[in-house]
């Protein structure tokens, strides 16, 4: 009667977890110290994979690319998300409709949103060049995805368009947890709306804001699909992110061990981001 078979209920999930998460997690670390070949004997080669990676110019370039992308896309997601969250805070029919509208692109895949934008940005037939031309802003079609910085901005724009709604919803959830009596008090005080926003709203939603920020930073480090579709990493590898480098080293150069070493470095970067996420969570509680 006292027998508790809780573990039995968890067993199928634990098996999946062990096989496809814990085992690969240990394996990626082991592989990173090996000269790993698909068939045959793997030999331990110490830190060689790491040393070779740190000596590879391309590694630092993709790290830089990813960092630059993160710095561009994060404010592009964040500022409009915060703006619309504050604007659409009150629950009424119009706001509900607008929230849905802004959130819809989040349901679209990155592959699809990237193609939708690649078509809009097309240098000869794209509608963006046509509109800019109509307003007399440009004389001839711009190859938006053909030059480094404009490609970086346009990829960021397409991702911001897709994911902004998600950040908005998270910030909205934070805003809705602020009690309305605080706002009533400030309106009696006669504070201006802008002052209320900066001195009351912003500090109170800070933990939620930080969470949305950390999620979008981590997300930008994991970016891959949008780069494959929109530029393929070009021009001159300037839009090649870490993940594309990991897959290239593994599946094009067949250096599985070194690819594992890059993965471990990447994992450490992501874990330090998550560490801040946990710390923020504790701060919140």
């Amino acid at each position, binding site marked *: 009667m006292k027998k508790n*078979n*809780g*573990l039995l*209920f*968890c067993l*199928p*999930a*634990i098996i*999946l*977890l062990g*096989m*496809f*998460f814990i085992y690969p*997690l240990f*394996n*990626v670390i082991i592989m990173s110290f090996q000269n*790993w070949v698909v068939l045959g004997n793997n030999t331990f080669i110490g830190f060689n994979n790491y040393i070779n990676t740190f000596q590879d110019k391309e590694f630092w370039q993709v790290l830089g690319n990813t960092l630059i992308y993160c710095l561009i896309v994060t404010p592009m997601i964040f500022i409009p998300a915060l703006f619309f969250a504050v604007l659409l805070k009150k629950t009424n029919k119009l706001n509900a409709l*607008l929230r*849905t*509208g*802004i*959130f*819809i*692109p989040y*349901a*679209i*895949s990155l*592959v*699809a*949103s990237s*193609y*939708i934008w690649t*078509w809009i940005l097309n240098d000869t*037939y794209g*509608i963006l060049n*046509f509109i800019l031309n109509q307003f007399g802003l440009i004389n001839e079609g711009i190859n938006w995805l053909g030059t480094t910085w404009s490609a970086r901005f346009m990829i960021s724009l397409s991702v911001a*368009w897709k994911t902004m709604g998600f950040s908005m*919803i*998270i910030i909205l959830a934070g805003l809705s*947890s602020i009690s309305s009596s605080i706002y009533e008090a400030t309106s009696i005080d006669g504070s201006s709306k802008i002052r209320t926003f900066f001195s009351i709203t912003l500090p109170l939603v800070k933990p*939620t804001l930080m*969470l949305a920020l950390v999620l979008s930073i981590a997300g930008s480090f*994991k970016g*891959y*699909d949008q780069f*494959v*579709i929109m530029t*393929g990493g070009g021009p001159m590898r300037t839009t090649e992110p870490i*993940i594309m480098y990991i*897959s290239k080293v*593994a*599946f094009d150069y067949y250096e*599985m061990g070194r*690819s594992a070493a890059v*993965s471990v470095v*990447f*994992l450490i970067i*992501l*874990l330090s981001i998550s560490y801040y996420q946990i710390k923020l969570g504790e701060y*919140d509680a």
Partner: protein
Amino acid sequence: MHRKTNSFKNIPIAILIILVLLIFLFPIYWNIVTAFKYSDEILAYPPKLIPSNWTFFQFNKLLTVSNGVFIQFFINTVIITISTILLVLAVAIPSSFALAKLPFKGSRIVFILFLSIFMVPFQCLLVPLYSLLTKIRLYNTKFGLILIYSTFFMPFCIFMLKNAFAQLPNALFESAILDGASKRKIMISLFLPLSIPSIVSCIIYLFIETWNDFILAFMFTSSNEVRNIQVGIMNFGKQRFSSDWGIINSGTLIAIIPTIILFIILQKYYIQGMTSGAVKE
């Protein structure tokens, strides 16, 4: 009094916001109208905002090319998505139930292990997962993909369902035990029906994540019999029809319709689920 003047002031703002929204959703509109144009009109200058002749020509081309390989991609995606949803529910429901109501020695550690998947994204494990799949002969199989999706999408569902089950009163569970019901029966016929909203949000989450996945399907498949719709579109757009914007736009439209429809119908549950972990009460 104060409120009334405010709402009047808000009318121009409301119009402005709606205008912004229309611009915001223009890319989707542009995708739809391009997919319904004839090829010469797609490349027409100046571009036509509304097709002069609406046509299924592009879809017809898309669905008949290479003996309907695009239909194959679509069916693959449906099979993989539904199987992943069923498998995750089958393993996540009992574990969440046990973690919430049948605490055992080490159950806290098990829960923390599940949540640790949040910290380690699968993007870091592409190489060992590839080597594992080839070793167990599941590389380039639907089943291999389903197992990997299930592993990495399961923790979010366990987190959500555990919270849902934990909220149900212990007395409910205890009185059912006294009545002589088995734990399995309590879980299925008592707890499940009371947690439908959480289960629905799990299903939407799983559907969108699995349907929209590109990287795993791209890395771990090599033949058209297994490829999903995202890889299929990429394959068409990058290789076979690199500048055929009719085919690319119609394929993209078909890929986004299921998730958008599901999302619009069930968005309440989805938002509830997404934000459940974000804000502490």
